[in-house]
């Protein structure tokens, strides 16, 4: 069943000019990322005093590229020590580049109000409003994904799946006093796991600083110890376990390898249904082997049903989600269909769809390794979800629904991010503006309010399933854990348990949080923290 044509297409997608690549070309992270404009018109750099905004008229973005108010000098360590491309410009030329680039590539470019760039004090302020202000059906902002960061931060690198910290993935139940910070899951063989920390443990204090501290010094200590420890640092954690006991544990931080696939197991229900379960945390290159091993185990165990726990999977490699979808559904269900169609604005060419990828991939080149993936040939899969289930994980759900593989969603509404970017660099800043959405084989991709589990789907983004709140009182993979137990109940009874209908309630033990108290900082970089979870959104960064 080896399908060379299909894989060739997949590879083509991976290296196509825009698609889902990070910087305008799959393999060009270091070399060409400063030259990724969709328009390649060669135009002499303008003099700042020649630049003029005329409403509704747009010069090519290349006209203003690398014309910086504060041009960098010297050589770029992230680009083979080549000289920086920056030339003398102004804040106006930077704004004009943003304006033209947005007009060329933004998915909803015709919904941007073309305001005079000179009426904005900063480049950042101007960029912040270069997006649609329309709302979704739920009233939420249509575009909640409009970012920029220093280019230097973009280029930070680490071993795939390595984070500095204790190996704890936290969940903020409440970020202001009375704060509730619980352990969501642990990396295998991490310092925290080896020290006896468990999912559900609630932090009471760290190095004798109360979790409810409301002084700036205390907050600084918590932020530093919890989210920014240096490898080798040892700190004392006082936590309350699920059984109510308190424990004091000293943990030494390290550079920890993440375990993207965990708790692979096969259960047998009372009516002898064999159910495979795995927790899949992140679509990173090193996950491929774990996914294949898991599917091989399920195949050997001859599972009848499969539960994939995506609740903390914020996405990653889209090709990997396609591989997993193939491994679940198999060739009989996926042949002759595609997995994901990129949708760009009407100024850009239509991309070749991403197929269901049926072989292993070398993620350093995106070339197929000519090794066929195992498959389970299932026509139904259970997915466990929370608001932390995002992007490539949502694409998995939507991609399978597009070929009528039944997806039963158990948990909470997913994050709602069917969009993507081509990070583009200009004047030491990397910009992210929504440039494409992704649709399944049936053409559906509008789930910006998330995919919602419901016993009785009514709307396009509804998915058959059961709404259930994440259950920190049980370990992941425990058949008594609320989401997994609901999935097992559904497998047996083809419906939701009664309690699941009303299960989305905050645990009574959590007092109302004090919204006026100091908040812990939300870490922004995966590689500077061991945080890897969602938390209550604080609104648009540009508000």
């Amino acid at each position, binding site marked *: 069943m080896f399908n060379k044509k299909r894989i060739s297409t997949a590879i083509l997608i991976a290296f196509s000019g825009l698609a889902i*690549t990070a910087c305008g070309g799959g393999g060009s*992270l270091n070399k060409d990322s400063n030259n990724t404009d969709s328009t390649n018109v060669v135009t002499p750099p303008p003099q700042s005093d020649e630049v003029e905004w005329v409403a509704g008229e747009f010069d090519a973005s290349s006209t203003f590229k690398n014309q910086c108010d504060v041009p960098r000098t010297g050589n770029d360590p992230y680009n083979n020590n080549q000289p920086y491309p920056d030339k003398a410009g102004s804040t106006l030329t930077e704004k004009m580049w943003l304006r033209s680039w947005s007009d060329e590539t933004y998915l909803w470019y015709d919904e941007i109000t073309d305001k005079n760039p000179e009426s904005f004090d900063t480049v950042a302020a101007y960029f912040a409003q270069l997006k649609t202000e329309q709302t979704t059906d739920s009233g939420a902002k249509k575009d909640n994904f409009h970012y920029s960061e220093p280019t230097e931060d973009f280029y930070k690198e680490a071993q795939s799946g390595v984070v*500095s910290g204790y190996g704890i993935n936290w969940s903020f139940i409440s970020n202001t006093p009375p704060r509730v910070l619980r352990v969501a899951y642990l990396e295998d063989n991490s310092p925290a796991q080896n020290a006896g920390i468990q999912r559900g443990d609630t932090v009471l204090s760290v190095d004798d600083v109360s979790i409810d501290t409301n002084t700036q010094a205390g907050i600084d200590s918590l932020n530093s110890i919890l989210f920014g420890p240096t490898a080798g640092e040892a700190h004392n954690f006082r936590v309350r376990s699920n059984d109510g006991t308190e424990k004091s544990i000293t943990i030494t931080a390290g550079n920890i390898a993440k375990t993207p696939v965990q708790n692979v197991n096969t259960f047998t229900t009372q009516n002898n249904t064999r159910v495979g379960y795995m927790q899949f945390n992140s679509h990173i290159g090193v996950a491929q082997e774990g996914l294949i091993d898991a599917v091989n185990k399920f195949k050997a165990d001859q599972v009848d049903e499969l539960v994939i726990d995506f609740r903390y999977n914020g996405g990653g490699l889209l090709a990997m989600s396609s591989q997993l979808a193939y491994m679940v559904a198999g060739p009989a269900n996926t042949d002759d269909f595609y997995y994901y169609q990129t949708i760009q604005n009407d100024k850009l060419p239509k991309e070749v769809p991403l197929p269901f990828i049926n072989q292993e991939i*070398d993620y350093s080149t995106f070339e197929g390794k000519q090794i066929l993936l195992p498959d389970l040939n299932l026509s139904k899969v259970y997915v466990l979800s929370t608001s*932390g289930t995002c992007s*490539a994980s949502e694409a998995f759900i939507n991609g399978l629904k597009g070929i009528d593989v039944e997806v039963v969603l158990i948990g909470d509404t997913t994050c709602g991010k069917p969009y993507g970017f081509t990070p583009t660099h200009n004047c030491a800043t990397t910009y992210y503006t929504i440039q494409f959405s992704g649709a399944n084989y049936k053409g559906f991709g509008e789930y910006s309010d998330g995919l919602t589990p419901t016993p009785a789907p009514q709307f396009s983004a509804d998915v058959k399933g059961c709404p259930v709140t994440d259950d920190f009182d049980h370990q992941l993979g425990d058949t008594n854990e609320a989401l997994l137990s609901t999935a097992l109940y559904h497998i047996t009874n083809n419906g939701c348990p009664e309690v699941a209908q009303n299960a989305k309630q905050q645990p009574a033990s959590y007092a109302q949080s004090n919204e006026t108290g100091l908040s812990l900082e939300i870490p*922004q970089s995966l590689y500077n923290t061991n945080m890897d979870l969602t938390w209550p959104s604080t609104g648009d960064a540009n508000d």
Partner: protein
Amino acid sequence: MIKYILCAVSAIILTGCNSTQAVEPQDATLTRVNPGIVTQLQQAIQTAKGGPLVTLADDVFTKSAQLLIDHGTTKGPDGMPIMGAHNIPSEKFVLQKSGEQCFLFYPKKQLSIPLSNVECEVI
């Protein structure tokens, strides 16, 4: 006579194969790792691909001969990785052993960097 020549040729071929196998680098893992070895690996990676030092796991190359290096994925205000659906390639390095020498191999440039005072074993 022909039989004799065939045997001789076969012997030469086999010798050649054996000789090649002895020096052919093979994938390996570290038998021990410490901060000094991690630093040496970081510097070798920097030599191979440029850029600043990258963060490596405390147990790098102890479970696998292959090392993938990813870009840091910044999170948005929603706490999710900004690049939640991407096709960003990783940089790949492989730990290899040839004879008693351990190397860091960078396939992209077909570059082998010898490592000193590093113990590794073929897997």
